[in-house]
């Protein structure tokens, strides 16, 4: 609008950085299974930036959604109107996910271990839980049957743990070699988790199947990273600095995708 000097680099929250970083990881991907909340914003941001051809699949039974607003729930009517196809959940899970048509599935969890195994079922013993969590929903089958799994969750020592209390969604199991053999023998579509995007940085998985910090977000420190993780994390020798969100990325998040700031505060 204005033809004068560029605006100063805008301030942004860690949630905003996390969403933007997750969206950028979707560059080049085609078909994405969208979860509610942060993944939903990240995927819709990617579609408006790095991955315009991205097809949005919602587990509720929608392929090729074009939501006109950010849905609060995973099954909002806005994901239906104007979609390419609406199908039964049997078809969605059987013909799209189990058949191997999904490139990326997003998962969050209450707990993750160094190999990317996820717990979204219980804290404490299953039969006498300290905290009862929502459970699998589609997470267990997304972890097994989406070609790539993107994890998006905030770091904390209670979440990034040495041992998860319940394995809801398999990651790299006890290590890459074991996981690879089991996936091949079992005919899984999935290759396991490929990235964990947190509020502090971006983790990929190394040849042993363990998380490795490859990029640190602006404002985050390695001390913070270590303080919010129960094990001694691997840090890439070529650690990058995550580029800050651009003004356009922030504008899209703030004005179009989460105008109420529900997820990005």
């Amino acid at each position, binding site marked *: 609008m204005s033809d004068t000097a560029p605006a100063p680099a805008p301030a942004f929250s860690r949630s905003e950085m996390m969403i933007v970083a997750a969206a950028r990881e979707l560059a080049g991907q085609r078909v994405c299974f969208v979860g*509610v*909340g942060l993944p939903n914003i990240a995927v819709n941001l990617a579609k408006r930036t790095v991955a315009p051809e991205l097809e949005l699949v919602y*587990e*509720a*039974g*929608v392929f090729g959604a074009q939501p006109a607003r950010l*849905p*609060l*729930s*995973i*099954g*909002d*009517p806005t994901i*239906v*109107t*104007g979609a390419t196809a*609406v*199908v*039964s*959940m*049997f078809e969605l*899970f*059987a013909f799209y*996910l*189990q058949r191997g048509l999904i490139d990326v599935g997003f998962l969050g969890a209450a707990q993750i271990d160094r190999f990317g195994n996820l717990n979204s*079922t219980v804290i404490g013993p*299953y039969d*006498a*839980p*300290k*905290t*009862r*969590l*929502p*459970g*699998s*929903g*589609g*997470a*267990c*089958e997304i972890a*097994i*049957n989406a070609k790539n799994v993107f994890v998006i969750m905030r770091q904390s020592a209670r979440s990034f743990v040495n041992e998860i209390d*319940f*394995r*809801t*969604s*398999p990651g790299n*199991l006890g290590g890459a070699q074991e996981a690879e053999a*089991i996936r091949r023998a*079992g*005919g*899984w*579509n999935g290759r396991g988790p490929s990235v964990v995007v947190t509020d502090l940085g971006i983790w990929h998985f190394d040849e042993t199947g363990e998380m490795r910090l490859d990029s640190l977000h602006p404002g985050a420190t390695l001390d913070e990273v270590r303080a919010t993780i129960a094990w001694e994390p691997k840090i890439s020798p070529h650690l990058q600095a995550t580029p800050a969100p651009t003004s356009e990325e922030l504008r899209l998040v703030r004005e179009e995708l989460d105008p109420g700031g529900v997820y990005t505060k």
Partner: protein
Amino acid sequence: MSTSKVVSMHGAVADLVRNGDTVAIEGFTHLIGFSAGHEIIRQRKRDLVLARMTPDVIYDQMIAGGVARKLIFSWLGNPGVGGLNAIRRRIEPASLAPGQTPLEIEEYSHFGMVSRYTAGAAGLPFMPLRSYFETDLPKANPLIRPIRSPFSDEVIYAVPPLNPDVAIIHAQRADASGNTQVWGLLGCQKEAAFAADRVIIVVEELVDEAVVRADPNRTIIPGLIVDAVVVEPYGAHPSYVQGAYDRDNRFYLDWDPISRDESAVQQWLKDWVYDLPDRAAYVAKLGAERIATLQPGSAPSGSVDYGEYR
């Protein structure tokens, strides 16, 4: 042509839902049968086994109302908001009231639940699926069992059929025989209905048989398997009906603090369920202004031609 199955919600629940029944009120975020759930609470049904992929606020309310002894599910949350606190209080030992029985649970993944209904609808003793590998779910639920393919020697998993005594399905429209049409999200309602012994259809609109017959591909449930048709506009509130009204997100957000406080929950049930005779009273209490905020714009499907062949 056929006899009308149209009855009141009171009559349908009184006749068709019996203490101890396995009841499935299905509808994945869309078309959740709140008015039926409230009538079950109002009639103080007991010892039900409640099945539903996502128990949602309706089962939080029903379980708070004391109707259930057991829950069969795949995702236990208030979608987009948080947990289902009344249910959690019946599951977490530290939260149980003194002397209170914990809620029995039987837990699957989404596709596991869908596959259970599909096996039930298809008259199959099991349904195979490629889920559960290397997870703790089969340990938590012994009804998730390995099965070997007779062709490849591959071992995958199987779940057993789920055949509810009663399925309750909310829909946009049906005729008086129960021929039911839905558009928008379909969830697993068709499968749940075919799997069930008895089916209650609740609709926004009762239509002439000719409306159904004009677009037979839109029919998800035939009157053949339907026992009762209840006409209750806004019966899915606070969930939504594609094309008719929006999800009342404010209600879902408001439920969170209420549900954290047992006495607030009971007060809510008194105000909105026990003290009201029916859904019409609920809608009146909700108020025209609130309802008006939920009206969508128009997005017509367009018409296709089936052709007249004589």
